[in-house]
């Protein structure tokens, strides 16, 4: 930036610069070479459009703007990568269709866009700031003649701050094609901001801070008032919720009760043997008549047992399931579940086993909520098989399978 005289305190003769006007760009270029060769430093040429060759004629060094833009671009590219890495891998990692938390290809588009964006900002603002813009007050604007510098005339101005300013006027007057040579007066107008602007600015500035102040207070204080809903979203809906009042009905409830005698699907309790495992209050000795104990039912029972029972009781029912073993390993106070193969359990009727699953016993909770009626029977049916298997001899194995077992024993 040029070292300006403070407005209103110009030198005694009140001259800011000497200005020569040209009507042809080639005259201007020739003149610029002369001014450059005469050794002036604080001067400039003004043209309505970029005149090519003028940079050399004036001896202007190439701008460093491309380097500024490069820096902007690198910041954008690296910042884009870091932003995505930090946001999706550290601050808020979430898995989308098993994709990795961080992968460069998915991040390229945004890195690219941010590279361009920050480069463009660097080019735009770099261009302005390095050229000393915005600069709304310029003594040259006080010269009526200079207004054509943006239309069809070409100017050279040598400023008073140039050490060889004394020779300036003579040099410019002698240049070929110089239509007029004039002195540009120093800008003597006041540089004070008008009072209206100052106070309006101050008021608007203070008011603009008010929302931030309110946010800050709201975040750091407590209140007994309900939350203020700017946008209600779906928080308030024109409907009745369960357990609320509604005077439309005689009983004042929003919820309607089912008609007397209503039974939900699958909840009809008309088969004591099937549902409770008892016949007239005594444990049943067999499967209910509606269930056939075939191989498929046994397979299902094995499945249910593996899912619900084996975690504590173990896959063979001896009471060393994963949970049990883990608890013992950790030295926790854990009551080992009952060994299903011990005699006290083996003598129980199948209905009693069913009752245990349904109602729970001692530390074991009821599994009625997890396991359906048929599956409970399947599980206990399988328990029966486990109990039998635990005390089986070779005679219990079908003849075709015996050979296999015997062979295994030899190994």
């Amino acid at each position, binding site marked *: 930036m040029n070292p300006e005289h403070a407005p209103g305190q110009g030198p005694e003769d009140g001259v800011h610069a000497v200005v020569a006007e040209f009507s042809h760009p080639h005259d201007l270029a020739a003149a610029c*070479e002369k001014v450059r060769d005469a050794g002036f430093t604080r001067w400039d040429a003004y043209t309505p459009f970029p005149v090519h060759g003028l940079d050399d004629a004036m001896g202007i060094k190439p*701008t460093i703007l491309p380097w500024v833009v490069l820096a902007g671009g690198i910041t954008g590219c690296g910042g884009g990568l870091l932003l995505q890495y930090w946001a999706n891998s550290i601050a808020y990692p979430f898995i989308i269709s098993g994709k990795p938390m961080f992968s460069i290809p*998915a991040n390229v588009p945004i890195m690219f866009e941010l590279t361009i964006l920050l480069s463009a900002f660097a080019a735009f603002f770099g261009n302005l700031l390095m050229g000393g813009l915005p600069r709304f007050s310029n003594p040259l604007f006080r010269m009526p003649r200079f207004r054509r510098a943006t239309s069809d005339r070409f100017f050279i101005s040598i400023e008073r701050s140039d050490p060889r300013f004394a020779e300036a006027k003579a040099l410019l007057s002698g240049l070929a094609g110089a239509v007029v040579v004039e002195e540009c007066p120093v800008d003597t107008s006041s540089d004070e901001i008008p009072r209206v602007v100052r106070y309006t600015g101050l008021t608007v500035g203070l008011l603009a801070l008010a929302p931030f102040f309110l946010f800050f207070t709201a975040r750091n204080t407590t209140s007994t008032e309900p939350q203020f809903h700017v946008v209600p979203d779906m928080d308030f809906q024109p409907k009745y919720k369960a357990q609320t009042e509604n005077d439309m009905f005689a009983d004042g409830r929003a919820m309607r009760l089912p008609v007397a005698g209503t039974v939900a699907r699958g909840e009809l309790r008309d088969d004591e043997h099937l549902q409770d495992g008892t016949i007239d209050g005594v444990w049943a000795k067999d499967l209910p008549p509606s269930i056939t104990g075939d191989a498929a039912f046994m397979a299902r029972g094995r499945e249910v047992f593996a899912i619900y029972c084996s975690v504590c009781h173990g896959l063979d029912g001896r009471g060393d399931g994963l949970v049990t073993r883990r608890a013992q390993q950790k030295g926790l106070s854990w009551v080992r579940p009952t060994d299903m193969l011990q005699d006290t359990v083996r003598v129980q009727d199948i209905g009693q086993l069913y009752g245990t699953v349904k109602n729970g016993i001692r530390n074991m909770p009821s599994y009625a909520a997890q396991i359906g009626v048929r599956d409970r029977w399947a599980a206990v049916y399988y328990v029966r098989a486990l109990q039998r298997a635990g005390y089986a001899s070779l005679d219990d194995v079908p003849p075709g399978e015996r050979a296999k077992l015997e062979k295994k024993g030899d190994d």
Partner: protein
Amino acid sequence: MTSIDPTLVEERPGDRPPILDGPNDYASVTEDVCRIAEPPVTQTPKGWLMGFALASTILLVLGAMVAHLFLTGVGVWGNRSPVFWGWPIVNFVFWVGIGHAGTLISAILFLFRQKWRTSINRFAEAMTIFAVMCAGLFPGIHVGRVWLAYYLFPIPNQMQMWPNFRSPLLWDVFAVGTYATVSLLFWYMGMIPDLATLRDRATSKVRRLAYGIFSLGWTGSNRQWHRFERAYLILAALATPLVLSVHSVVSFDFAVAQLPGWHTTIFPPYFVAGAIFSGFAMVVTLMVPARQFFGLKRIVTVRHLEAMNKVILATGTMVGYAYGMEFFISWYGGNPAETFTFVNRAFGPYAWAYWIMVSCNVLAPQVFWFKKARTSIPIMMVVAIFVNIGMWFERFVITVTSLSRDFVPSSWGYFSPTWVDVLTLIGSFGLFFTLFLLFCRFLPTVAMAEVKAAMPEPGHGHAERPPAGGAEPAPEGGR
């Protein structure tokens, strides 16, 4: 190609006319361009006032539709299962596409030293900005709960949530946002010297103040010009890959999805060609009446329009090739869902839209093979409007046909727009034309400084070249 020197022009086989018609000097260019923006408010041309009244009324319709949408919810649109991307997304892609011509003319043609661009670039850039504004509106209001639209951006928030950077929809936010910003900077930066011209010619205090603020104290100092030209070149070099990336990213919205008809690798180049195609058609649509109305025929000549028509022909044919290639690949790829989708496009319930698209986009521009058609104002106007219509239908066909019939026939449906859809689309034209008319009335519609730099030096006459050697003063340095 650099020269606009008539002596050289006569030797060319194409017998190319000069960039500007008639006798011109720097002052006449300034005068021709500035007088459009300069009449006092009381002397505003009647035609402009009528146009503005119409455009701003349509803009009010848009405002009413958007308000209705906000207060009621997205149910006012025809978007419903299975077509959840209805007209709003069609309109978004349509407007973004139109917004490609401006930056293409400004940046790519600038890098290729196509000097004829100087007469139309400002115009096309303005069109770009306004089209991108219309485009940005649609995804903005499409999010449903608009007050949560800030979720689109990676803003630190009290929920400690961040957007998913692996989603093409987020890439879209960045691509369109960057494009809008860079286009605005490019447009504004190019306009600073011309705003200074308007400032220096201003007679009223208000105008001097307004143009004074926006021209940022530009003096035309060569030290400023030196940096300005470098910055402009850099911005052009940045905008060129950007303009190609934007519609590529928009196409990812579709191509990354697994829907038949969307999941194709041809989409990025196909979308970019379509975008340039629609953008140029829109420039012609606007330029023809504007040069007539504002008396810019000497600056925007038939040569400029012809050059744009050639681009329309080229890109239209590329788009036609892409339509054909989609069919070829759907057959060659052997994926039954894909094959079905394309057969369904051409012969299914949306066949009417498909054939409107093909006839407007592929067949109509073929008349530009003939010079008579390329240089005829009525013909180019009709073709350009056809292309605008056709390109809207292209986006409709892509978006709606694929969504309405995907893999499972039980989830098929037929999309019908509602009156709100229709009025919102019409209303977006109100926004576009309101801004455009304001631009024509108050801003420099032609890049005066650039036109002057591309002119032969008046003192030397048209045919004469300035003496070689030393500092070359003629503004011919673009080689």
